[in-house]
């Protein structure tokens, strides 16, 4: 028994050492796709979420005629399975980044999938801010811009940070599927060795690497959110 366990451990250590450079490259590719997607998806999703809050019921400038269709588009995009979206967007990616396959094409699809998710999350976070506090700001003569940037956003920062951590992890997990359209990263590595060559030992190492990255992200952002939150 002891022998088997030691052998198991040693075998995987050897595989890890043998594949470390390709593992490292793939990890970097995954991180690159995740980071690029997070940045661009937030650049779209954050303002979109803020806009939704303003247009929503009880918002700063409620407008159902704009809110309803926008909300519909967001819900629809969110309900398309990512694998299908990934393939369906190949012509669109070709238009945007010049190629329908590869890392950058995957990033396009990831951004399209993540931005509506972020918009919804931002909307929820901002709507959680106590209406009484917004009323107080209005009673002092704060304009809409001040209510957004001095009340709604700062008051919901802990919640936004927690959402950021969930989003990042989700994007990383989705990026693993991008191997299907020829993007790199840990996902493609897993598909290549795990599925094509039945190398479950490499698969296990890839899983461990991913778990480590996810744990670090989760730990850091939760720590940050807790540190920043003045309600506790």
């Amino acid at each position: 028994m002891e022998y088997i366990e030691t052998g198991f451990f040693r075998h995987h250590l050897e595989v890890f050492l043998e594949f470390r450079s390709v593992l490292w490259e793939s990890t970097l590719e995954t991180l690159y796709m995740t980071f690029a997607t997070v940045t661009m998806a937030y650049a779209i999703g954050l303002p979109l979420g803020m806009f939704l809050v303003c247009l929503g019921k009880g918002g700063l400038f409620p407008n159902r005629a704009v809110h309803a269709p926008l909300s519909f588009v967001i819900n629809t995009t969110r309900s398309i399975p990512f694998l299908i979206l990934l393939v369906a967007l190949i012509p669109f990616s070709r238009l945007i980044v010049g190629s329908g396959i590869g890392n950058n094409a995957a990033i396009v699809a990831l951004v399209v999938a993540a931005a509506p998710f972020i918009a919804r999350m931002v909307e929820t976070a901002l709507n959680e801010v106590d209406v009484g506090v917004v009323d107080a700001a209005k009673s002092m003569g704060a304009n809409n811009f001040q209510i957004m940037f001095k009340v709604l956003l700062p008051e919901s920062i802990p919640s936004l940070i927690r959402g950021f951590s969930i989003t990042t992890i989700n994007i990383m997990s989705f990026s693993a599927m991008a191997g299907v359209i020829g993007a790199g990263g840990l996902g493609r590595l897993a598909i290549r060795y795990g599925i094509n060559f039945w190398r479950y030992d490499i698969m296990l190492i890839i899983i461990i690497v991913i778990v480590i990255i996810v744990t670090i992200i989760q730990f850091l952002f939760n720590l940050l959110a807790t540190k920043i939150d003045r309600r506790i």
Partner: protein
Amino acid sequence: MIELRNVSKIYTTGERALEDVTLTVEEGDIFGIVGKSGAGKSTMLKLMGLLEMPTTGEVVIFGENAGAYRGAKANAIKKNIGTVFQGFNLLMQRSVAGNIAFPLEITGKRRHEIKTRCEELAELVGLSDKLRAYPASLSGGQKQRVAIARALATNPKILLCDEPTSALDSFTAKEILRLIKDINAKLGMTTVIITHDIHVVKAVCNRMAVVDEAHIVEIGKTAEILANPQSAKTKELLNFDI
């Protein structure tokens, strides 16, 4: 100073919160509005604070028909009105100093000006040692003191208080009422206090109105009304003791 002229308020839900209400609050006075839950008291205060627009009638503030103002014009008037809420409504992610500074930041005051003013106000409400604390760590009475300091920050000419003591124990409630009374005496701002407790009105208000089911049923000097109540609703409020 504040006048409601034949004001009615019907919310978009169809709820008739106020019907044909007329009242005047004199400059420097402490005016009490008392009534049961759902009578329309908060609605009255929201109209005075320009948070809601009247459906019909006029809300006249500083001699202007301010009830009809929107946007920047309304905001300019609001900067001369301070409001204290039942639920304190403090910014939870800002310190005490940050909360008091908020209305000053909104009006674009300079940093050092804000700092001096915060210290002044903290002293006035007795919270000089709590400027760096966060609301979550304060007691109810302390939170309400912060809210009062914040409402006074821009030197408003009007102070509106919606149930300022309802979330507090009776001892702390008395302290807060005394503070409001002292501030009125010291700074001379026109003060309106909304309450469901007629004893609060008795303790601090010169003039009062009794509201019931969207109407004013009695209005006048507090001493006179309490000594010789005319309306059955007033008597009901006076006799209510557990």
